[in-house]
């Protein structure tokens, strides 16, 4: 079966209409392993990609003032049980442009797979980027996902990212994101992850509010069961007048799982303010009893609380 058809099937299983890959109004890049399978540019979205010795490199540029109506789809993953994928991604949103990128990352059969993503994202003044990354993992936990991103949000820019890995086994996940937020700009980083078995989750997200009235939110939700482990480090630094940041981490732990949250807040300007909240623990008994008083079984009540947390 052609690779693009296989990817289309995976997309369908992920709940995405695979027609996005044939729609001429939708920009996309599709890569499996070290193979570049398909790409499409549309007016306002320029894409350059090439295979390098150690992986793939892709550049996506949204041109000045362009408002991209349909999300740009990035489909990346490894279809086989063994493999490696290394991607260097550069995204630039030129001044006053607006776009959304939806990344579909798939590792359905992974038993010994490594996925490395090294992203550099530049959001010029007044531009807005939404970046949603959804993962589709198989049941074996044999995948290492190692994404790194360096993001700069210029004045009056906006960056919102949503990372979701809630079905299948996580395997090993090591997120390392750093975001610089300039004057009057906004950054919001959301992550939702469900760890099972012996999954190993490490998240480090750092936001530096370097411009006046820069604002940020780091919001992390993790549910763990079995012997899964998670360490979540959320760092926010307020370095300018009127900068406001908040770090919010919630982790639910069941069975023999282990969770750790490390919120770090730093302020170097007297008129900046950064706050944090973190809650780790088993599911609140009153939440469960509230749901059971509506007739849900204990198992259904747990599922409802966890699903809500990761929604």
């Amino acid at each position, binding site marked *: 079966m052609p690779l693009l058809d296989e990817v289309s099937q995976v997309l369908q299983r992920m709940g995405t209409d695979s027609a996005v890959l044939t729609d001429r109004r939708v920009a996309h890049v599709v890569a499996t392993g070290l193979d570049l399978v398909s790409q499409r540019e549309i007016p306002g979205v320029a894409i350059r990609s090439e295979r390098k010795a150690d992986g793939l490199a892709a550049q996506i540029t949204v041109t000045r003032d362009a408002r991209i109506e349909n999300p740009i789809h990035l489909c990346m993953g490894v279809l086989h049980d063994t493999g490696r994928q290394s991607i260097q991604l550069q995204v630039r949103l030129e001044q006053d442009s607006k776009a959304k990128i939806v990344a579909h990352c798939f590792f359905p059969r992974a038993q010994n797979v490594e996925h490395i993503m090294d992203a550099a994202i530049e959001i010029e003044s007044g531009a807005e980027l939404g970046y949603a990354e959804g993962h589709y993992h198989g049941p074996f936990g044999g995948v290492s996902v190692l994404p790194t991103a360096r993001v700069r949000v210029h004045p009056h820019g906006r960056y919102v990212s949503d990372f979701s890995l809630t079905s299948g086994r996580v395997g090993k996940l090591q997120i390392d994101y750093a975001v610089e937020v300039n004057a009057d700009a906004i950054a919001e980083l959301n992550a939702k992850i469900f760890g099972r078995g012996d999954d190993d989750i490490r998240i480090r997200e750092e936001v530096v509010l370097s411009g006046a009235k820069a604002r940020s939110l780091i919001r992390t*939700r993790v549910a763990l069961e079995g012997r899964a482990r998670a360490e979540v480090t959320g760092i926010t630094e307020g370095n300018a007048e009127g900068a406001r940041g908040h770090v919010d981490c*919630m982790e639910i732990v069941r069975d023999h799982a282990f969770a750790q949250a490390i919120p770090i807040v730093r302020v170097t300007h007297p008129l900046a303010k950064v706050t944090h909240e973190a809650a780790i623990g088993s599911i*609140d*008994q*009153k*939440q469960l*009893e*509230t*749901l*059971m*008083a*509506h*007739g*849900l*079984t*204990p198992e259904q*009540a747990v599922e*409802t*609380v966890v*699903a*809500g*947390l*990761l*929604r």
Partner: protein
Amino acid sequence: MHLLEIKNLSFQIGGKTIFDGLNLALEPREIHALIGTNGSGKSSLAYLILGCEEYAPTSGEILFEGNSISALKLHERARLGITLSWQEPARLEGLSVMDYLRLGNRYADSAAFLCKVGLAPERYLQRNIDKTLSGGQRKRIELASVLALRPKLALLDEPDSGIDLLSIGEIAEVIHSFKDVGASLLLITHREEMVRIADRASQLCGGKIVLTATPAEVAEHYKSRRCTVCDGKECHHASPG
């Protein structure tokens, strides 16, 4: 046959006796007020009827429609038609008001039940029942969710507390809408004016029901502090609930 019958109930927790030979009966479609001072055990009685964790009778029996429910788990009691509107309802992240109102009754007309508690559906149905709601909003949604379940027996724990700007008349209207869905109510309160909404009332003190009579009689008895066990200000016989 009584809808609910509590026979000679005793309950101890943490080495302290909360109930000692308590008897109480509710009839079908009856609004029964249970009044008592802070710490008299009103909420504890609701948790015992519902079957919350750590709330199991030390002795005695709880019968629902003539059958003992002591061995049933909380959700099994809920499926029989018993439910609780909590004094301080839990917040649930990621669960919309609409989904919450349809838990246990997926065909419930969520909008209609929100209207009954004074909330505009278009403003609330898509919101989550998380910390972004005020205490009063959450409380009203809790009442709506219990109404939506169409229970046989609803335990309402201080339904008026924390709800601003609702007159006793408006609360009475909400309370009586439970009757419209065929429910009996155990209306837990410490306010005598709430008692007057009920069909019948009981006063709880010292681990026992000290009086069951008309709402006016019980309200007067409670108001005059003629409690047989303590002075009525603060019950000395129980602490939780």
